[in-house]
């Protein structure tokens, strides 16, 4: 019997693999180099580290950056865009929006489709879906001829009001299929998102057409190679929404996989929230150039209905990952008598001064090295040696400009970097109307555990959690998540006057689609949960709040309008600090989310230590301007029942956890380190 559940997070540099053995209840982590030319090589290298052979797998999920990389490197398909007559320029005008306020040389992002590759079609619907002008079918056939003769690889169709009546888009698809056959990528905007705003819907459809064929070819290649090696279960793929779907389904909705890479960590935090019984978590993932923040609020992931990628909007469910430019490579410098740290970064090349690749400016990594918080022989799991003398020189030189010695300067650089990361977290939590003090901080990624306690103290957060294998936490998150599909439907009307029978009908239709989709993915009917929500706002507002509706607030109930209004007022009050009860409310979008639980055995808790002592070496590390003789402990030596008082440093393959004086660290039964951050002393 196959008994191994496996997840793979295929990143830009490394492929992380996590395996869960259902018999022993234990996890194993593996890591291989990503092989960009044919990702399957890195995948099989990683798999070989955690199991004997592919047929032993009984569940397999992976996150892929294939589509995202194609987009980032602008090597997607050549797309022909079919739009409604009169408004074909909407995609090029991009709402006339600019994001920099003081720049006379401003540039919008270069569209993925040229204006000359946009074909306007006669045929127009009214706002209510009725037909104003019939579709000119001959123009569609002419566009198909152009597709064939000019070497296009995909078609995006984005017609006005298709979210309320898809008939014209469907007719276009029918004709294109007749002309071009079944294998050509045709993206219809209403299938990507049944929501209003033609620019955002067009942008989503274009991105899908641009990246879809590449993702599909990749999935087919990987799946066939896995089948060759005897895989007996369907391959699953991580989605931007934080849920997974079968590769079969992913092939028809490739856009959903576009931002799947970074969401694994957020889903890991969600799984950790359940396992540890801590419903409010802030996840931080710090790498060389970026600092990613994600939230779990009340045991729920923080999911938005819209995202933006290099300025291009995408209408789809996305787990919110807030990225700021702060990382180990952030540069520290002198400006007009002041100290600055980041957001400019030394990047990977030349990188921090201590990399010895020609960088001479001090970075956060150099500062950590000067303070002794990084082991120069054990950076990136021992794959890289650092040069402490180069870090000393760069930091001392900057310190000279301020009359500070290297150690004081180094601690100052870390203090500023930590304060900035903490402020970024505060801004995000304030934006959500939540108080960081009521959360625990989960730190993962290479550098997160090094800074977490300092950041927590800035925010008055009492507890930091370092999960097992923090470097592979994203892969672990994928393994623990559920199957998910999201459905939406634009619906515009005031809450008080809306036809609730019609809303209920829309919701039931979405529910039926949702259940069918999950059953097709092999989920049993009893494991499926459906939830409904409405995007609402006060009349004349623009931003909407998504409010879950059930019970009294479900549209089939007489109490619907009043209950939904109360829920909305309460949500507005908690999010923004004020509400306008009695003001008219309007509905903008209806949503259904369906989750399919995967049955899986629980992991087995680690054995508690019989002896609370653990082996360690001692190193001199600076905390609070003075050197402390600091125990350095191997993570695999730590067991539940042991208590590590700060100062201490915990080393493992992919991460270093820095525990300043005043902290007390314990190990919970499933291996996470729980740090009571205490106070600086």
């Amino acid at each position, binding site marked *: 019997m196959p008994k191994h559940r496996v997840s793979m997070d295929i990143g830009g540099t490394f492929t992380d693999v996590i395996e869960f053995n259902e018999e022993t209840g234990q996890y194993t982590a593996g890591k291989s180099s990503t092989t960009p030319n044919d990702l399957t090589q890195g995948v099989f290298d990683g798999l070989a580290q955690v199991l004997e052979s592919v047929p032993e797998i009984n569940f397999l999920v992976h996150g892929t950056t294939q589509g995202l990389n194609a987009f980032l490197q602008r090597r997607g398909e050549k797309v022909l865009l079919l739009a409604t007559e009169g408004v074909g320029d909407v995609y090029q005008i991009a709402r006339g929006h600019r994001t920099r306020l003081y720049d006379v040389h401003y540039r919008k992002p270069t569209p993925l489709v040229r204006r000359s590759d946009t074909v306007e079609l006669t045929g127009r619907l009214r706002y209510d879906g009725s037909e104003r002008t019939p579709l000119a079918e001959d123009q569609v056939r002419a566009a198909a001829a152009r597709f064939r003769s000019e070497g296009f690889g995909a078609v995006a169709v984005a017609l006005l009001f298709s979210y309320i009546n898809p008939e014209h888009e469907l007719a276009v698809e029918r004709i294109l299929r007749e002309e071009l056959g079944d294998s050509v990528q045709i993206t219809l905007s209403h299938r990507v998102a049944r929501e209003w705003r033609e620019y955002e819907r067009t942008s989503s459809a274009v991105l899908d057409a641009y990246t879809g064929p590449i993702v599909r070819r990749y999935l087919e290649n990987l799946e066939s190679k896995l089948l060759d090696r005897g895989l007996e279960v369907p391959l699953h793929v991580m989605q931007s929404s934080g849920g997974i779907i079968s590769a079969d389904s992913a092939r028809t909705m490739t856009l959903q996989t576009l931002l799947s890479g970074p969401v694994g960590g957020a889903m890991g935090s969600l799984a950790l929230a359940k396992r540890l019984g801590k419903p409010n978590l802030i996840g931080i993932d710090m790498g060389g150039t970026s600092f990613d923040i994600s939230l779990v609020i009340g045991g729920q992931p923080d999911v938005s209905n819209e995202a933006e990628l290099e300025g291009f909007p995408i209408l789809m469910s996305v787990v919110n990952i807030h990225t700021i430019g702060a990382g180990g490579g952030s540069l520290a410098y002198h400006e007009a008598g*002041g100290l600055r740290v980041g957001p400019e970064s030394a990047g990977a090349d030349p990188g921090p001064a201590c990399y010895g690749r020609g960088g001479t400016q001090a970075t956060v990594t150099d500062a950590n090295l000067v303070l002794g918080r990084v082991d120069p022989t054990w950076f990136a799991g021992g794959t890289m040696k650092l040069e402490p003398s180069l870090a000393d020189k760069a930091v001392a030189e900057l310190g000279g400009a*301020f009359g500070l010695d290297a150690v004081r300067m180094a601690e100052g650089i870390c203090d500023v970097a930590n304060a900035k990361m903490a402020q970024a977290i505060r801004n995000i939590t304030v934006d959500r109307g939540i108080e960081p003090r009521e959360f625990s901080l989960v730190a993962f990624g290479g550098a997160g555990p090094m800074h977490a306690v300092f950041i927590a103290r800035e925010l008055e957060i009492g507890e930091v959690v370092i999960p097992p294998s923090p470097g592979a936490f994203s892969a672990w998150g994928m393994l623990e998540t559920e199957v998910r599909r999201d459905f939406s439907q634009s619906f515009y009307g005031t809450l008080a006057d809306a036809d609730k029978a019609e809303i209920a009908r829309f919701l039931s239709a979405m529910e039926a689609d949702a259940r069918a989709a999950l059953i097709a993915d092999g989920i049993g009917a009893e494991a499926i949960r459906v939830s409904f929500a409405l995007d609402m706002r006060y009349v004349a507002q623009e931003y909407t709040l998504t409010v879950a509706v059930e019970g009294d607030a479900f549209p089939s109930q007489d109490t619907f309008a009043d209950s939904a209004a109360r829920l909305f007022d309460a949500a507005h009050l908690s999010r923004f600090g004020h509400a306008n009860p009695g003001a008219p409310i309007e509905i903008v979008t209806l949503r259904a989310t369906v989750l399919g639980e995967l049955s899986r055995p629980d992991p087995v808790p680690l054995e508690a230590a019989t002896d609370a002592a653990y082996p360690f070496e001692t190193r001199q590390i600076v905390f609070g301007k003075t050197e402390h003789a600091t125990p350095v402990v191997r993570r695999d030596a730590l067991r539940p029942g042991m208590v590590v008082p700060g100062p201490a440093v915990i080393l493992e393959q992919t991460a270093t956890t820095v525990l300043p004086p005043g902290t007390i660290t314990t190990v919970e039964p499933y291996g996470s380190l729980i740090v009571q951050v205490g106070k600086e002393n």
Partner: protein
Amino acid sequence: MAAYDPILTEIIRSALNSAADEMNSTLIRSAYTPVIYEMKDCAVGLLDENHKTLGQSAGLPIFLGNLEIVTEYTEKLYGREVWQPGDVWILNDSYIAGTHLHDMTVYGPVFVDGELVGFSTCRAHWLDVGGKDAGSTTDSVDIFQEGLRVGALRVVEGGDLVEDVTDLLTRNSRFSYPARGDLFAMIACVKTGQGRLAAIIEKFGVENVKQARDEIFAQTARLEQETIRAIPDGEYHAEGCIDDDGLGSDPIWVRLKVIVAGERITFDLRETSDAARGPVNCGASQAISAARVAYKLLISPDKPVDGGAFSTLDVLVRDGSILGAQPPSPCEWYFSSLGLLIDLTVKAFETVLPDRVAGASAGDSMVIGIGGNDPRNGGVPFLLYEPTVGGWGAWDGGDGQDGLINNVNGSLKDMAVEIIETKYPVHMVYYRFRPDSGGVGRWRGGNGVERKYSVEVDGAWLSLWFERSVTPAWGLAGGGSATPPECWLNEGRPDARTMLKINALPIKRGDVITTRTGGGGGYGDPTVRARDAVEKDLREGQISPEAAREHYGYRP
């Protein structure tokens, strides 16, 4: 006092900027009016106890650095002891804040341990503040036609909303629920700032924050002095005009003289035309802000604004000119001259900062308003009111952007066709680029856009405010001027009528309105434009074959 601590100073500096960002997101996320949440027609700022900016967050550029005028004014009027913990004030008077009456400034003092340590302020545009026409008027002759004029009023006392004042403010708006919502959003924003500034001072200590502040201001001033010292001393000039005052006046001139001397720079605006009868006047404090925007565009685009910024800049304005409005001059369209001033400043530096300048842009907001009653919803009133994007100027090394929101506005997004047709009884026939409208040049000016609206209701009205046709966007370094804007009612029909400004013109079902925005100015000699750039413009339909031949000497 302790020695300067660069680490603590930098931590406090980023905490102050971060606090301003929090205020901004509180305001934007919960505001009602589209001009706040999409045009970012708002600004937030934290001030110290001397009314100097500690932190300001992105919002409308032309509100830059003049929020302090309002707290200073209030203090001058009522004395310093008027500030009480938990109070929040509101003001909109054009001759104090400098802008039109739509712009409400909400502000309150910050206290720590009984000591006044600073102020939290925000400003945002309200949809309707009374006035003779719904939304906005283009033909007012005095301030009293433009709406409710509010001096300094307490709207929250000791933490409690003052209900009668709130009622007065919102009762005078035609859209009273949104006004109430925007007021609450602004109060929430001010309270966020009060809380954050107090928390920062409690955390770091009032003396440490004051010391850090002095150092931060000094750093910013030093940076700007260095930049200005690098500009050659001299006098630089530019002038241009807005078409008229909305009542059919002669063109109104904005004249700028820039004097650079060592580390100081002076913008002398005193030769600008006398105050106009129509609503194009602007309070002096706002003219100074616009000068600061232009200065910032050229001198320090990426640096946050604080109390040390603009210390090298003097702005001279003449009371009684359109940039120094005196009661009761109407001020509704105060920003048209300011957009022009910004473009003129860029032009003035053409030869001294060649790598930072660009040709002129299409102008300012280019607003269309269509109002009436919507029969689809039982005749409820509707008001479609939108700025239109235009072309931007080219520069040495780049073509101007086609179809981009103007420099005076924030980061507006145009209104989606699907939203317009759903919410208003209007059919948008087309929305597209306006080829050949950008100025020619080695680098081409950006093209404007065309929008065609078909009216699907009787008894409606039309207002227009389109500008910059007398001095359309000019080119630099030999680049050509752009095509000016153009608006039509029923173009090509016997009852056709063209105009750029109109107030509440009656329109009916079947009428068709076409608006065309101007392009941006070109840069450099068009005859040396790269052949492949001309071919690309031809292929993409941004220039016509005639223009390619005539201006660029292109032969296929």
